[in-house]
């Protein structure tokens, strides 16, 4: 009987996985021995890192999107019909439209989402760029801004560990261009006792912030925002006034994960090596929605997906898995307007960034452009 692979979520991790499986299982797909089905929420695929440029007007909204159907291999059966319940006991997924899909192997790739509403006052008083609507509103708020105090407030957990730093530097350069840098004070807040989770990056950031006069406050976890008084208060007892509050709101996994009782906060308990949902040998978890304690980032999704593609292919064809995931994460870090460095690490190897260079900056720019090739599984 034909083996059914069902992928829930058509973002980066789900899409790379689907396309990679099509390539590796081409012959079995051709003979009808296996089928690949994906359930998504929309027929558009969004390039999320591009959201960073929307508030500054340096990228158009339409540049962020491609038709998901065009990004996906033709052999994937794609439904724009979100999962409403994932029943791992009975190997079944129900959808919003009332369909029911059985599977032999399930891939959960439902990502993460921002939940500003969990901090009182944040949704009303703050701006963010982590979704399109928020990035549009922030663009307007920046247009209206004519100097004053900006607070860039980072909360845990969040995806893309470098975006908070990038937005801070971009804000500075944007305001400088508009002649507002002298009339503006930027304060960056971070939840732990340094400026970034990665120690070498925190160290470097501290020197860069000094260069630009960006202030900072560490051990700052937002407790509430008072939109009328224009202040943000931390769990640690500090209060900062703002004229423009830019926040990286806390995140949760997808609603369907919690609705299906698959993990607190929407994070699915996942074996860090096999990527199996804990307790299910035929359910795999990939991308932001795992509870693995590593960065929620596109590169993580990519390396996990590569492992999963090999393992699922071997399982379908030979009934065995191929290799464990080693926890690899890779990040470019922009270190100025025309230089960058990168760090990589895994469960065993700590990060050790090399010296910044122009060459790495160009590689990062090229990588931005290559996102679509990567999603299509061609990188």
């Amino acid at each position, binding site marked *: 009987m034909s083996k059914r692979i069902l992928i829930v979520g058509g973002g980066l991790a789900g899409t790379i996985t689907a396309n990679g499986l099509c390539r590796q299982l081409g012959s079995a797909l051709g003979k009808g021995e296996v089928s690949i089905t994906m359930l998504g929420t929309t027929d558009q695929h969004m390039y999320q890192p591009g959201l960073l440029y929307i508030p500054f007007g340096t990228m158009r909204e339409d540049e962020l999107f491609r038709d998901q159907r065009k990004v996906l291999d033709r052999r994937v059966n794609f439904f724009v019909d979100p999962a409403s319940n994932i029943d791992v006991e009975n190997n079944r997924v129900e959808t919003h439209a009332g369909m029911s899909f059985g599977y032999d192997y399930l891939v959960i790739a439902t990502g993460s989402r921002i939940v500003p509403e969990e901090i009182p006052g944040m949704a009303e008083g703050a701006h963010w760029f982590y979704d399109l609507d928020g990035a549009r509103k922030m663009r307007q708020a920046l247009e209206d801004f004519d100097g004053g105090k900006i607070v860039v407030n980072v909360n845990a957990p969040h995806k893309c560990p470098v975006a908070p730093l990038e937005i801070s530097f971009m804000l500075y350069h944007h305001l400088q261009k508009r002649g507002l840098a002298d009339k503006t004070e930027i304060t960056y807040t971070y939840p732990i006792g340094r400026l970034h989770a990665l120690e070498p990056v925190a160290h470097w950031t501290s020197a860069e912030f000094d260069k630009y006069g960006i202030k900072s406050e560490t051990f700052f976890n937002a407790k509430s925002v008072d939109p009328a008084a224009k202040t943000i208060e931390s769990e640690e007892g500090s209060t900062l006034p703002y004229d423009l509050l830019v926040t990286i709101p806390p995140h949760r996994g997808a609603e369907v994960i919690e609705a299906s009782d698959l993990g607190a906060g929407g994070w699915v308990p996942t074996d860090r090596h096999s990527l199996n949902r804990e307790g299910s040998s035929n359910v795999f978890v990939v991308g932001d929605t795992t509870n693995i304690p590593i*960065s929620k980032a596109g590169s993580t999704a990519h390396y996990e997906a590569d492992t999963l593609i090999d393992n699922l292919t071997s399982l379908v064809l030979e009934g065995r898995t191929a290799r464990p995931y080693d926890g690899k994460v890779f990040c470019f870090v922009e270190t100025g307007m025309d230089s960058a460095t990168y760090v990589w690490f895994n469960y065993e190897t700590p990060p050790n960034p090399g010296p910044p260079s122009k060459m790495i900056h160009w590689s990062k720019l090229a990588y931005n452009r290559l996102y679509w090739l990567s999603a299509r599984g061609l990188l």
Partner: protein
Amino acid sequence: MSTTTIDARGSYCPGPLLELIAGLKLISIGDEIEIWSSDQGSVKDIPEWIAKVGHQMGETTEQDGYWSIRIIKSK
């Protein structure tokens, strides 16, 4: 009181303290988190943050190559 275990061994980014902060948001007051960290720095920076924010430290024990640190959510 229920205990949630967070295995943050080998976590360089976000690292054990950020995992703990995220984990505390998901449990009720009076419940406990036992976090495992292979970074000796956690033995210092976790209690430092817990004292600032006002949760309660439980026991810290050295295991085979990692530390187990217990925290009770108090607010």
